[in-house]
């Protein structure tokens, strides 16, 4: 079945990226910052993807760059999902004034576009990959709160929740044991979709030159390549690989996200048929 193949392929790709990120020191032939020969070499057996203007090995940089991108995406998504789920559950469960306050705050916050806001915010902090990831996660969590809350609204009045109250359970117990497990699938999808979104934002920040200068990331690689005429000089091995790497992981996450969404929302499945 085509859908299963896509799902398997996307999981395969994501796992492969994770393996590369973890094993970067083993796989990469050179230190990504080291000068390894002549600058701007075309690909050869020594340098699989040639060298850049600083004579750094592009292949090694590509491998190390996986770490930055995955870290940014996954840490950001984790922050988003944790905050979104926690606030969404509390807001939807208690309803009333708490809910009203949270939702109006989010309505306002959501009118601010996340990318320009990040551009400004990152200039206030020492550029660092963790700070950026957490900031992205915070800003991205608003939407997560809404998604989770809307599901919790119906769960909070579900018969089994009333039943658990009737057994003498407190609010904390009900939220943790009965509501949380029911929103986890949704939180999972939100994680995958946010991870993709944040990876792309991370690349964008790197490309604009406000990434963490102490790490290698694909955005900065693309930036450096295009700044130094890779396009005009036809140095495809410098420009294309990081671009392809981003595209592939981003596609894989999107596919996985859609497949999971289909799985938890039967209505979507019907619509696509």
């Amino acid at each position, binding site marked *: 079945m085509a859908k299963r193949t896509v799902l398997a392929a996307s999981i395969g790709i994501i796992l492969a990226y994770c393996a590369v990120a973890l094993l970067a020191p083993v796989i990469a032939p050179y230190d990504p910052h080291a000068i390894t020969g002549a600058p701007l070499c075309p690909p050869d057996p020594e340098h699989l993807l040639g060298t850049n203007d600083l004579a750094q090995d592009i292949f090694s940089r590509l491998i190390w760059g996986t770490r930055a991108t995955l870290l940014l995406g996954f840490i950001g998504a984790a922050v988003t999902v944790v905050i979104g789920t926690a606030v969404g559950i509390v807001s939807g469960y208690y309803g*009333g004034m708490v809910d009203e306050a949270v939702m109006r705050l989010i309505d306002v916050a959501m009118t601010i576009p996340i990318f320009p806001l990040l551009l400004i915010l990152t200039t206030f902090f020492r550029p660092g990959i963790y700070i950026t990831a957490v900031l992205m996660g915070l800003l991205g969590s608003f939407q997560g709160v809404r998604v989770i809350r809307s599901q919790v609204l119906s769960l909070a009045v*579900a*018969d*089994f929740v*009333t*039943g*658990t*109250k*009737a*057994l*003498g*359970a*407190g609010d904390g*117990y009900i939220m943790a044991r*009965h509501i949380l*497990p*029911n929103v986890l699938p949704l939180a999972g999808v939100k994680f995958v979709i946010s991870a993709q979104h944040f990876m792309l934002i991370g690349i964008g920040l790197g490309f604009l030159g406000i990434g963490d200068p102490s790490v290698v990331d694909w955005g900065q690689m693309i930036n450096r390549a295009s700044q130094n005429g890779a396009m005009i000089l036809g140095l495809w091995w410098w420009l294309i690989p990081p671009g392809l790497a981003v595209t592939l992981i981003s596609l894989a996450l999107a596919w996985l996200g859609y497949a999971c969404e289909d799985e938890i929302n039967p209505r979507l499945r019907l619509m696509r048929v």
Partner: protein
Amino acid sequence: MNAALLEVRGLKVGFPTPDGLVRASDTVDLELYHREILGLIGETGSGKTVLGMAILRLLQPNTVIEGEIRYRGRDLLSLPEDEMRKVRGREIGVVLQNSGTSLNPVYTVGDQIAEAATLHQGLKGSEARHRAVELLDAVRIPDPAVMAREYPHRFSGGMRERALIAMALACSPSLLIADEPTKGLDAVTKREIIDLFAEVNRDRSVLFITHDIEAAATLATRVAVMYAGEIVEIGAAGEVLSDPAHPYTRGLLASLPERGMRPIPGSAPSLITPPPGCRFSPRCATKDCKSEHPGLVEVGPGHYARCMLYDRG
């Protein structure tokens, strides 16, 4: 009789809506004695469920509640929330309506059955699992050790009902409130559930909310009939159901299939602006009482009816 286990006095429950206050329960008085089954009957929307939920204080926070609900002498309505939590599940158990959706789909039945014991008695892990199997066995679920590991969707309607009863009994409460436990069950399963309640009743009182008059007749010691938020007749089950005093109860019995299936004309009145005088008067064939609102009058020993036929000021 000895002191009542549960005493409801002047209970008024109202739900604020944009159109006005819906008086779902209006000045309800009743007692529930030790080891008795009180059948609460009435049509949909007459306030039966609301009464049950009000006793456990499980209604929405904006509900307007007045009156007293005394359980073993303590007024439940003035109890702080954390004290009330200790009453729920431990002192008073409840079997909610809609057994199909009353179990959390993400946990196995066994994981949920002993939840009250986990909450009140700190039962954990294998102890809780063991208790769950015991409870399932007590409500006659075949192969309880195996069924405890199944998810709720694998249970049939009758089995879910049993599981919910087991759940409510986990801490051996002295009072069990059962809300339409025979709803949607076939005749054989219904019979089994009724038998189960008779057994459950040996150690505790049961408030049996139902619109199944036959079930109430089989089980109940006493019966209370509700109409439009009021109790219109209350008394020993045999007496009320064989020799009803109130025209509504008579109509209810006459509408049963085995007694001619003659429905009461008209429909239940609005609970926002109930009819003046007797609430049943617009549908009543016996008497037209638009000006006076009758009180509950004793028509026989322990048998009361709210009707102008008997209320002579």
